[in-house]
């Protein structure tokens, strides 16, 4: 027994099966984590090797090159870049997205092992490091304080962090910029010399007097005691009273005589300000696979709870929380889905006019969508932008099958069949073609799951979800829909009059019948006339359509449609990086920072928070990897109000900031980047410049940078990847003189470090915490070259030698970090587009570079997102061809004809016309999401054609004459075609119009599909019949004649003897 018959005969089972599916789906839905994107491991692996004492160029030749050569043959490798710094080699391997990285790491390990023997002695074993997205911070809080600022470190570490660490799934909590308590013993060089003692003596004496030690057990006649020396410092002031030495004349020298003791917070090197107030930054990361949204919510709750216990002047404010972003984009998508649902139901109601019918069809939507949640749960995915967008895309398509089935059932019922029989036999008639149209959709979406690279990661889920959802809708359409029809639809009301004649009750009352049916009938008539006219003037119609098509290609050819990788999202955040003159003191940098903050707030009232850091934390933890501030650099994270609460877009705001920064003479370079971290989808063109010679590549880079800045209007934020050469002080030791004093370079280096950087003399214990006691020279004795030359070094002979006696101090330029890509030295210039598309920017840059005379030995290429874009477009082009072929195959086998699919596919180019028009009108650029829309259009457009051509075929088969068949089919199929087209178009409308956060990314999809489908539907309704008429003339007309020849027996003479009847 067929599936639909069983469904109709067992309504209870059918209903319960679907109820079960819904319940399981909702159960899965509740368990699904919410995330921004599907889980994807960034395919980057770093091989780190240290080689103490080697310079950057030595590292390059002896370590990096060897490793690169060896690792170059790892399978699946996309690119290999490296950095060679003093003492350190880092080789970064980039792989294709979607590879199994564990396997790759094994591979890398064996290649590293092979290369290891050739590495120089003294080189450490290369360390293989996998970059994990879970290391990225998920939230940042700024903690500000006034009076309690000095003690903030202790307050936070004791009261806040232990509470927060209990949150389930939390990875790492890092405090950045906390004021740490330090006890500085700052020694006067002159006094040291006067007393003839060394700095080390002081630190030893301070250390030696700071201990608690057990001295054994004392046994008394009856009792027994532990004895202990307790001389640890309780307060820092005790240090002042330590005796360092006794002079010849018996006078004691105390620490206070030669040094000042400062019990204070650590010297400022990293300055964190939050809305211009002293602040500490709390950076949170999660464990791999943990639910970001849940952690962030939990964290917020705990912080709010803990905040009440902190001193009143301590405020905790959220700087950034990825859960906000995620929830906003997810909820705006959920909104889109609900609107799409509403629109689709309204379209169905409009065309059918019966609420029961509309209800039956609408029911397929939630059921089909819920199955997607079961799929997501099974593959361990999440509710993310991709999966929800897929649902939004699918909504318009899931009703199509149910519509076809319901329409046929209604036809049977109106002929007087009982709803039950009508449901069975009507479904029997259409179920094969319903499945065939679903196969077309599958032919479009399944190949998407096979894409590789970043586009593959994005579209894999989409491909599966749409295929699964649409297949479910087909199953629903041939089981639940007929079953519900058999129960819910009513037979047409008739009665038998007194003469025994059948009278149909008049239905033609009510406003629906009057207005909407009237309108639809008019449309039918109008269309029939238009079609007749077009069929009469086939050549003219086709010529007009081709003209339209080629006219629409003009904007494309003339470059009016820009291309992008992905639309940049407006998440309300700007990262500002400012670079001042090299070597600027931190205090000066801070002044500029304060000035900028104040101006920014004046210029942009939309700014909600500014969090600024300047300087560098020399022993910062994990967070140091993500920020590269040094003394002359300022980095600001600016958070603006929500997107729908302000009028200016984030890109305009960034431009305002850039204009302001350009006015400051002390600012050497600046960037205002709108893409904050992961998922922002920031776009850029990178110019990679390859060449061995640093000076030459630098010069070319500078030339290119200048030209771009002057001549390319849309170029912003040009960043050179190669750090500027830095001035350092170099101490040149005279080894001969050293030897005379019994010193070595090593000892001098240690002494120098003790004096300038400080030596830790021990720890001060206070209330369970330990604080460093650092002994060093006072600032005046170490803040100029002359004062450093004046530093005394204690020689083994007992005398103090001035540094200037054994060394000269000079300035020198540190060699840059050597960066290499594809085993060649290179540098990159990163350019961000503003009000221009990535493709146009790349073309403009290419043109500028073309005018520069690039010396021999230097090559360049364009990379970055532009390269990703080129690759993705190429991939999608191939995919498109594959999909067109598959769709052709599915259709050709359905029609058993080579020509018919060609007729239908004739409508595809016109979809492109619609796409171009839509992009042009809305001023949108074509990115990979838009390209995805074009690919999807292949399936959606073809579906309309199938409905039409299938019916023309059927009528021709039933013996109708060609043009009659075409006209009849047109009249009969107009409404279903319009209905399915409008459900899809309106299903996309919320996506195209949504103003929610994160919606930018999916705008192009909505726009492309709506434009393409609108135009191609109209064209399908006109051009496909015309083409059918043209192509069917040949071959089918003389079918009868041919058939006659096949059955030649009819022509044999009858040689029977005439019977005697």
């Amino acid at each position: 027994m067929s599936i639909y018959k069983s469904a109709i005969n067992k309504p209870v089972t059918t209903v319960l099966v679907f109820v079960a599916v819904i319940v399981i789906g909702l159960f899965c839905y509740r368990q699904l984590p919410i995330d921004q994107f599907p889980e994807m491991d960034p395919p980057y692996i770093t091989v780190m090797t240290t080689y103490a004492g080697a310079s950057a160029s030595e590292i390059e030749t002896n370590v990096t090159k060897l490793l690169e050569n060896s690792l170059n043959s790892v399978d699946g490798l996309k690119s290999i870049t490296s950095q060679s710094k003093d003492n350190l080699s880092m080789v970064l391997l980039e792989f294709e997205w979607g590879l199994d990285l564990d396997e790759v790491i094994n591979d890398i390990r064996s290649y590293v092992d092979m290369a290891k023997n050739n590495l120089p002695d003294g080189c450490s074993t290369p360390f293989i490091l996998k970059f994990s997205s879970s290391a990225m911070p998920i939230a940042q809080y700024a903690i500000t304080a006034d009076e309690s600022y000095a003690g903030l470190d202790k307050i936070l570490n004791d009261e806040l962090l232990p509470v927060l660490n209990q949150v389930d799934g939390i990875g790492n909590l890092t405090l950045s910029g906390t004021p740490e308590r330090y006890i500085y013993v700052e020694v006067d060089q002159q006094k040291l010399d006067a007393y003839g003692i060394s700095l080390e003596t002081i630190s030893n004496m301070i250390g030696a007097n700071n201990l608690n030690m057990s001295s054994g057990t004392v046994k008394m006649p009856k009792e027994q005691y532990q004895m202990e020396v307790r001389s640890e410092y309780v307060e820092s002031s005790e240090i002042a009273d330590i005796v360092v030495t006794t002079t010849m004349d018996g006078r004691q020298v105390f620490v206070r005589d030669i040094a000042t003791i400062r019990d204070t917070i650590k010297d400022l090197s990293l300055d964190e300000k939050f809305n211009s107030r002293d602040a500490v930054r709390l950076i949170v990361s999660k464990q791999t696979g943990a639910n970001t949204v849940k952690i962030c919510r939990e964290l917020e709750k705990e912080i709010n709870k803990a905040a009440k216990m902190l001193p009143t002047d301590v405020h905790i404010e959220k700087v950034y929380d990825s859960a906000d972003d995620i929830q906003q984009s997810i909820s705006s998508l959920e909104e889109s889905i609900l609107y799409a649902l509403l629109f689709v139901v309204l379209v169905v109601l409009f065309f059918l006019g019966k609420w029961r019918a509309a209800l039956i069809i609408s029911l397929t939507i939630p059921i089909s969508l819920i199955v997607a949640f079961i799929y997501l749960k099974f593959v361990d995915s999440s509710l993310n932008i991709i999966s929800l967008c897929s649902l939004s895309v699918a909504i318009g398509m899931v009703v199509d099958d149910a519509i076809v089935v319901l329409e046929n059932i209604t036809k049977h019922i109106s002929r007087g069949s009982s709803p039950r029989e009508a449901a069975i036999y009507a479904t029997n008639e259409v179920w094969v073609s319903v499945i065939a149209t679903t196969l077309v959709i599958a032919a479009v979406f399944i190949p998407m799951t096979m894409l590789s690279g970043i586009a593959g990661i994005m579209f894999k889920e989409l491909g599966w979800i749409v295929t699964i959802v649409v297949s479910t809708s087909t199953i629903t359409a041939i089981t639940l829909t007929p079953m519900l029809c058999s129960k819910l639809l009513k037979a047409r009301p008739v009665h038998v009059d007194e003469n025994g004649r059948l009278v149909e009750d008049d239905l033609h009352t009510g406003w629906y019948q009057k207005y909407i049916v009237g309108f639809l009938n008019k449309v039918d008539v109008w269309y029939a006339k238009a079609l007749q006219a077009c069929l009469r003037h086939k050549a003219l119609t086709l010529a007009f359509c081709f003209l339209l098509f080629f006219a629409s290609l003009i904007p494309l050819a003339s470059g009016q449609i820009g291309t992008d990788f992905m639309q940049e999202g407006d998440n309300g955040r700007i990262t500002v990086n400012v670079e001042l003159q090299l070597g600027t003191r931190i205090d000066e940098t801070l002044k500029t920072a304060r000035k900028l903050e104040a101006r920014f707030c004046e210029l942009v009232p939309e700014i909600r928070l500014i969090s600024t850091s300047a300087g560098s934390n020399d022993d910062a933890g994990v967070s140091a990897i993500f920020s590269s501030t040094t003394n002359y650099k300022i980095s600001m994270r600016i958070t603006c109000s929500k997107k729908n609460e302000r009028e200016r877009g984030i890109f305009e705001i960034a431009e305002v900031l850039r204009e302001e920064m350009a006015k400051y003479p002390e600012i050497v370079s600046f960037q205002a980047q709108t893409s904050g971290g992961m998922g922002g989808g920031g776009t850029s063109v990178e110019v990679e410049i390859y060449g061995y010679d640093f000076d030459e590549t630098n010069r070319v880079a500078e030339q290119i940078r200048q030209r771009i800045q002057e001549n390319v209007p849309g170029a912003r934020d040009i960043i050179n990847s190669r750090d500027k050469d830095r001035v350092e002080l170099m101490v040149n030791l005279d080894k001969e003189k050293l030897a005379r004093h019994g010193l070595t370079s090593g000892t001098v280096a240690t002494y120098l470090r003790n004096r300038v950087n400080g030596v830790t003399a021990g720890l001060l214990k206070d209330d369970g915490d330990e604080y460093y006691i650092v002994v060093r020279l006072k600032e005046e004795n170490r803040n100029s070259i002359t004062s450093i030359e004046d530093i005394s070094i204690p020689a083994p002979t007992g005398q103090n030698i001035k540094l200037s006696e054994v060394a000269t101090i000079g300035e020198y330029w540190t060699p840059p970090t050597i960066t290499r890509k594809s085993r060649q030295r290179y540098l990159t210039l990163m350019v961000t587009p503003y009000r221009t598309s990535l493709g146009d920017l790349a073309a403009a840059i290419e043109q500028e570079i073309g005018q520069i005379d690039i010396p021999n030995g230097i090559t360049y290429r364009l990379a970055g997102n532009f390269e990703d874009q080129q690759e993705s477009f190429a991939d999608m082009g191939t995919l498109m061809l594959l999909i067109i072929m598959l769709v052709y195959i599915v259709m050709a086998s359905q029609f058993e004809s080579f020509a018919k699919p060609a007729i239908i596919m004739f409508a595809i180019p016109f979809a492109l016309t619609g796409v171009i028009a839509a992009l042009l009108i809305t001023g949108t650029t074509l990115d990979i999401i838009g390209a995805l829309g074009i690919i999807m259009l292949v399936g959606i457009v073809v579906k309309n054609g199938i409905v039409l051509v299938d019916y023309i075929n059927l009528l021709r088969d039933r013996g109708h004459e060609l043009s009659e068949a075409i006209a009849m089919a047109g009249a009969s199929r107009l409404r279903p075609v319009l209905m399915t087209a409008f459900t899809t178009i309106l299903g996309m409308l919320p996506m195209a119009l949504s103003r929610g956060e994160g919606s930018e990314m999916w705008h192009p999809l909505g726009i492309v599909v709506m434009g393409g489908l609108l135009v191609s539907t109209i064209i399908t309704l006109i051009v496909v019949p015309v083409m059918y008429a043209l192509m069917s003339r040949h071959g089918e007309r003389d079918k009868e004649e041919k058939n006659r020849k096949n059955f030649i027996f009819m022509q044999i003479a009858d040689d029977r003897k005439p019977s005697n009847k």
Partner: protein
Amino acid sequence: MKAVFIIFNQANTSHIEFMLDELKINGFTFFEQVQGRGSHTGEPRRGTHSWPEMNSAVITVVEDEKVEELLSCVHKLDLRNKDVGIRAFVWNVEQTV
């Protein structure tokens, strides 16, 4: 005894069953899927893509006096909707065992 051969659109199956019960005709033979086409007006019922509908058929052997009543009912059902289609043919039963 006469044999009445009724061919009807599948969609009429429940009507036929009701009719036979109503006329107290117990015995019949039912062919669920039969194909055919009408000589004058009847659309083909071929179960193909172009003609997807199918017929069913019933042969029932009844007393001579019941035939008229049965044919009348068949005709009434035909009047209900001509497009759906139903026909009946009657012939003699020569022998039975």
